[in-house]
């Protein structure tokens, strides 16, 4: 929902909203890796948590409803790393294609996935 008054979608305090869903999921390995990338890359000076938040906000409200929390985070981490020149879009695109060719599951797509598809990464 666009707002002509300058209030942005992420600024949620006081909005009407329904009951709070208390469901909890356990974090997948790939999500923990995203979290680790956030801590390590910000610690190494590639971006600040402020830059991370800014990129998340710039994604717009659709991202909040269609992407999971860590999907948005890896998108934001990548946005920040691209902006700072850590790697290029071409390098990223090329690598993502290579990864897709490695196998159909997260485990199989690791660089040194064993013959049994186990994850040594």
């Amino acid at each position: 929902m666009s707002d002509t008054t300058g209030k942005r979608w992420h600024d949620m305090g006081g909005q009407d909203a329904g009951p709070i869903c208390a469901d909890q999921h356990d974090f997948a390995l790939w999500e923990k890796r995203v979290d680790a990338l956030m801590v390590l890359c910000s610690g190494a000076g590639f971006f600040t948590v402020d830059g991370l938040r800014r990129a998340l906000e710039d994604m717009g409200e659709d991202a909040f409803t269609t992407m999971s929390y860590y999907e948005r985070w890896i998108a934001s981490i990548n946005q920040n790393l691209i902006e700072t020149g850590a790697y290029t879009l071409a390098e990223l695109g090329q690598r993502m294609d290579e990864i897709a060719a490695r196998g159909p599951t997260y485990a199989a797509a690791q660089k040194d996935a064993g013959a049994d598809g186990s994850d040594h990464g």
Partner: protein
Amino acid sequence: MPHDHHDHDHNHDHGGLSPSGHPFRADNDEALTYWQRMEIAVRELMIEKGHLTADQVSAQIERMDARSPANGAAVVARAWVDPAFRARLLADAGAASREMGFDIGPLHLIAVENTAQVHNLIVCTLCSCYPRNLLGLPPDWYKTREYRARAVREPRAVLHEFGLDLPDSTTIRVHDSTADMRYIVLPARPPGTDGLDEDALAALVTRDSMIGTGLPRTP
């Protein structure tokens, strides 16, 4: 609503339980997604370019896994039994946590105490700021629109949903973590706990009681 996997019910024996005792989500064996490919690509590129090592990534995951509400519970229990520690905790919760040996990094931590007159509730309306370096990763509900929108406007209705109703004589004090501070609630020690040792007291301290959406258990 944020995308989630709650309607999946998988049974995999690919070894290793998550620290909560539940199996990892089945993502390892589900179809590889665009964002998972991005995570792998980003990690590999950053390692190949010498900005990170695989060991650092693993070590950071382990570091984060070691952080859980049990750490906060230990801090709370010590404050319950040791008045001088309690004073130090309320003056500088970061220093007090480090004093107990917890590796909380650069966290600016503030402890706010519940009394008969005041009950504290923590939220981050703008994103999902949380004292993760002490308590571990926040619960999913803490990051939802529903919690972030309503906690600042109708905290009593929110607490009622969590099963907590406070008397009108208690003031609710909501903290919106908008900047660099992170908050942990120091819940009041439950009645009937005289004579319990620190470990037994810590076992009563729930994660929700340190966010403010619950009270500690009673023995």
